[in-house]
């Protein structure tokens, strides 16, 4: 027997005491391993300067008294809090998120952030009444959108949550997430939510495909599963916590969840037994249900992607119905409807300023442009507050105030200035104030063709200096969507293109360089915008040598989809937004340098900013879109005139509407001609210019000026005419 063969001379020493030592060693090591893991989790996701999702923001920041709708996604899609707010003139917020999230954690967050006078409505999904464990949905979301659930608990609850979180989620999250530089930050995402769905509700107009796990199940199977139904201990504990919350002056009522489908609640015997048990449990705790079970059942044609989700038409019906129920029960918090969007967007701006400024910035380079459309710009500039994310062409300010900081170089020269270039959404220029450390350092003008020079403090070598940029006279920022220009919901004000830090004297050199550059093209300086030819003073705006307005419209902006994270996502393949422009008229000459050109042209990728006489194409490929009149002559042509950088002619390849290709020579001598026969005028015409034999350089590379932009063709005019 192996038992007897492995006897050791020390066998007799093995007694209870040594077994105890073994057991204690196991326990201590086990606890140490788990504690170390808890510490790792806490250090990774345990700290936040702002709520982790818009729902949390609503709950934490909207002033009361409020009607708070809390449940899983049935209410997120089914109850329009804005409609309730408008109808009852109250402040209603919908913080419903996901039925997979934990009921006890939800009640805990209510206990933390609901105040006396608030009314909480709980149209909980059925699983909330029967589930006794944390779901994967909830645990998986802890490192991201539900980080607040983690950061808001302490002690044993925090340990319990940390030890529910798979290591892959903790470590994989940072690894798999897109780099921060390319995505919208959480605050920016919440800002979009505050603009698009300020009260927390959203629904789709048309049904989406059925969600995973829905197909092949009846409605009842989806709602209740196959296991036996009984009220869980977890829900009973949550009821206990709700009772304590009620004592603090918060009113709590229950409601039945929205269910959508013709076959829902067909197993009446099973359902009614469970529903009665739930209702009895709730009533026993001193709470009541609003409405009846059947009042929340809707037919299949109103279903979105699951039997819990209504499309918007259904949500409106349900919400109006719910409003009547609230009125009939006399449920309404005191106070009036608040401008939730305005309150939260301001609060988000403040939250951005809560963390300390980044100290790990590289010293700002001197005598070099820093293009804000490149991720490298983030090595030099901390866009602390009031900005949208990184995108092509530059970075937008969200409103009329924003904060950024830079680290001054150790050897910053006397009289150094920071020059800002950019353009406003609507074009033009505005009075601009810049503050640093509470002191106004500039009061000048910034905008189309005018840059702003900010004096750099000489005493702050190798220090991070923060600047507040403010446009006191500009109207409140609007979104392109509000203006009817595109589907972009973001409020946009100033589009910052690039910055340069240099000594004041060098600014003139650049201006001279520009003159030389102009000479190459046989142009005079007067053809460029020089609104103020004087040497700029610190309190005045300076001429913008190379105004690079990236689209006066919304060509360079993101198209956020609902409140999802939104990186730059052009709405068409070519990168052009859906045009809302008027059609070109026959024989109309469109001047690319005129501000009015944006009424007709959608300037896509590959262009530099508009200048007085025209607009430069970038080196490789440039896209342009415009609408033609519905009927054009059979021999209609498009003439495009301009200059080639360096004065030579170059071969240009023109792709028309992604198909027809035309190869021709572009020269300063005569315009190119694009035949438009057989073109479909019912859709916008899209031209893509490219240069097969590209060998363009920048004026800087040629030693003509300090302008680093690679320039190819300077397009001046376009004309629709007949051959």
């Amino acid at each position, binding site marked *: *027997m*192996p*038992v007897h063969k*492995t006897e*050791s001379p*020390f*066998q*007799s*020493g*093995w*007694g*209870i005491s*040594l*077994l105890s*030592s*073994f*057991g*204690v*060693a*196991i*326990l*201590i*090591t*086990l606890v*140490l*391993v*788990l504690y170390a*893991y808890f510490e790792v989790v806490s250090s990774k996701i345990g700290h936040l300067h702002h709520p982790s999702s818009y729902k949390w923001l609503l709950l934490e920041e909207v002033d009361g008294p409020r009607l708070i709708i809390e449940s899983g996604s049935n209410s997120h899609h089914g109850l329009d809090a804005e409609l309730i707010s408008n109808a009852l003139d109250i402040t209603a917020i919908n913080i419903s998120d996901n039925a997979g999230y934990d009921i006890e954690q939800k009640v805990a967050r209510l206990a933390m952030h609901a105040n006396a006078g608030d009314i909480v409505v709980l149209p909980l999904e059925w699983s909330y009444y029967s589930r006794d464990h944390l779901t*994967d949905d909830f*645990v*998986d979301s802890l490192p991201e959108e539900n980080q607040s659930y983690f950061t808001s608990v302490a002690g044993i609850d925090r340990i319990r949550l940390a*030890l*529910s*979180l*798979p*290591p*892959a989620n903790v470590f994989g999250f940072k690894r798999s997430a897109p780099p921060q530089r390319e995505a919208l930050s959480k605050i920016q995402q919440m800002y979009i939510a505050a603009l698009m769905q300020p009260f927390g509700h959203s629904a789709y107009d048309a049904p989406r495909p059925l969600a995973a796990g829905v197909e092949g199940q009846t409605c009842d199977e989806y709602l209740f599963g196959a296991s036996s139904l009984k009220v869980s201990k977890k829900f009973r504990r949550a009821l206990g916590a709700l009772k304590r919350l009620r004592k603090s002056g918060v009113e709590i009522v229950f409601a039945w969840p929205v269910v959508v489908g013709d076959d829902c609640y067909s197993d009446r015997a099973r359902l009614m037994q469970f529903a009665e048990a739930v209702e009895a449990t709730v009533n026993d705790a001193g709470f009541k249900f609003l409405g009846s079970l059947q009042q929340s059942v809707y037919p299949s044609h109103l279903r979105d992607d699951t039997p819990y989700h209504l499309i918007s038409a259904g949500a409106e019906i349900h919400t109006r119905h719910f409003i009547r129920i609230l009125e009939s029960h006399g449920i309404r918090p005191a106070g009036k409807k608040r401008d939730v969007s305005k309150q939260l967007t301001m609060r988000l701006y403040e939250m951005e300023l809560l963390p300390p400024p980044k100290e790990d910035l590289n010293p700002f380079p001197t005598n070099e442009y820093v293009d804000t459309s490149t991720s490298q710009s983030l090595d030099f500039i901390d866009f602390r507050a009031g900005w949208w994310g990184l995108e092509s062409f530059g970075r937008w300010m969200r409103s009329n105030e924003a904060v950024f900081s830079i680290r001054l170089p150790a050897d910053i020269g006397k009289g150094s200035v920071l020059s800002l270039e950019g353009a406003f959404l609507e074009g033009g220029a505005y009075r601009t104030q810049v503050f640093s450390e509470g002191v106004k350092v500039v009061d000048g003008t910034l905008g189309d063709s005018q840059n702003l020079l900010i004096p750099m403090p000489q005493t702050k070598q190798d220090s991070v200096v923060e600047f507040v940029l403010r446009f006191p006279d500009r109207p409140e920022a609007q979104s392109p969507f509000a203006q009817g220009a595109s589907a972009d919901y973001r409020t946009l004000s100033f589009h910052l293109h690039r910055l340069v830090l240099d000594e004041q004297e060098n600014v003139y050199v650049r201006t001279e360089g520009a003159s030389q550059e102009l000479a190459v093209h046989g142009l005079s300086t007067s053809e460029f915008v020089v609104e103020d030819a004087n040497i700029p003073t610190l309190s005045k705006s300076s001429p913008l040598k190379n105004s690079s307005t990236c689209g006066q419209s919304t060509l360079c902006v993101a198209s956020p989809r609902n409140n999802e994270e939104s990186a730059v996502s052009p709405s068409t393949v070519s990168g052009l937004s859906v045009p809302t422009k008027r059609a070109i008229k026959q024989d109309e000459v469109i001047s690319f340098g005129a501000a009015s050109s944006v009424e007709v042209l959608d300037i896509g990728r590959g262009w530099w900013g508009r200048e007085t006489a025209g607009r430069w194409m970038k080196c490789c490929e440039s896209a342009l879109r415009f609408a033609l009149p519905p009927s054009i002559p059979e021999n209609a042509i498009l003439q495009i005139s301009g200059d080639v950088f360096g004065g030579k002619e170059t071969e240009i390849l023109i792709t028309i509407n992604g198909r027809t290709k035309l190869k021709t020579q572009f020269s300063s001598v005569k315009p190119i001609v694009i035949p438009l026969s057989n073109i479909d005028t019912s859709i916008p015409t899209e031209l893509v210019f490219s240069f097969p034999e590209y060998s363009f350089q920048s004026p800087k590379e040629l030693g003509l000026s300090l302008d680093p932009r690679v320039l190819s063709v300077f397009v001046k005019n376009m004309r629709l005419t007949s051959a």
Partner: protein
Amino acid sequence: MLFTDPIFLFKFLPLVLLGFCVTSLAGTRAHRLAFLVAVSLVFYSWFKAEYLILLVGSLIFNFVLATKILKAPQSKKSKLLLVFGIAANLSLLGVYKYLGFFVLNLNEIFEVGLPDPALLLPLAISFFTFQQISYLCDSHAGKIERKDHTCLEYTIFVTFFPQLIAGPIVHHSEMMPQFKTAIPMPQRSKMFAEGLLLFSAGLFKKLVIADALAPHADLVFAAADDGQILDFWTAWSGALAYTFQIYFDFSGYSDMAIGLGLLFGIRLPWNFNSPYKSTNISEFWRRWHMTLSRWLRDYLYIPLGGNRKGTARQYANNFTTMVLGGLWHGAHWNFVIWGALHGVFLIINQLFRFLAGRVGLLDFAERASGFRLFAWAVTLLATIIAWVFFRAGTTHGAFNMVYSMFMMAEGISIDVPSTTLAVLCGAALVSFLLPNTKQISAAFNTMKFKISLLHPVVFGCFSGAAAGFAYLAALRVTQSPFLYFNF
């Protein structure tokens, strides 16, 4: 209820240990065994209560038959009873495990359109059937004393829950005496500690290593079964992932089973001894699933004639044993091919040894380190190729994999996640270089330093860390069941 399920770890096991302590302290040996039988039947019925009837029926049938055989062992009557018993046991196994396969092939070949019986394979049927067949054989052979044949001990021999579901396949001669032996307290304490050590190590192997490799192996084999040709790296990554997955899964399970046995004062036989360190395929089978190899040797290979009837017959016996061993794992042609491959590998190995012996190079082959390294690589390669057939869901899927592994074809590529790659490297390191749990257990039992608190503390820390990491790994959203539960 898997050994890794929270309900087993935090409810069933503590309650059973408590009950075992109480019955050990307050009751007799019979009480203790009766308690173990009861909890073992509860454990089995947790999976599917209906099959408890099958298990209990099989138990009663075999116990009664063995009782009759033991009245006159080695007689004609007992031989008839033995044949009847083996036939009945194999019929039961055949009906549940192979009838569907038989019907499927019959329909395929003769197009007779027989209905698929669609019987669900009762859990552990292959294991408890084999154990009972060996008991009947040894009863007939006179290797069991009539006085040792008691109902209670027979029942716990078959149903003891740590080994009931997926082995090790125990032999009555190593179990029955333990049921009778009273273990002194110091020895019991030490077994308990060793049990915890092995159980923690098994948890770690299963949850941290095997389950981390499973998703990638599943993905690659699913693609191959789907008719895809894979690129070279993808095919090899999938084959290697499965090679280590099955080792750490099954050896982890066996370690847990042995550890659990020790918690109750029962030492189960070892089932693994670093099989991937083998330098030939015979050695592999002495290190892999050792209790199955032992059973096949004692109750199939030797009765077939073993090596007693000439070289050709020995090769044929080897081949037959391995093919039937393959079929034991499941009713699928892939298992037959897997067994046949191993049969061929064994024959090649024996042929090589025979020829090397004839030319006087056998000694060199066994001692020269360079040649041993080569032999190890060839053995591992052969094992990996055979695992492809063992794992693939379809035969064409297995051939797709083998084709992809060797033909450098252009095929689909599946990225190996960095965590999988790291675990794969760690698994290889552990398999090839580090001591196995058998050796760790031996170190635990034969202390090389003076007795002190340090000894239990070191092993306790090892166990605690293994359990801690296993707990964290178990938080993974998806866990795969033990692979040998299918057999």
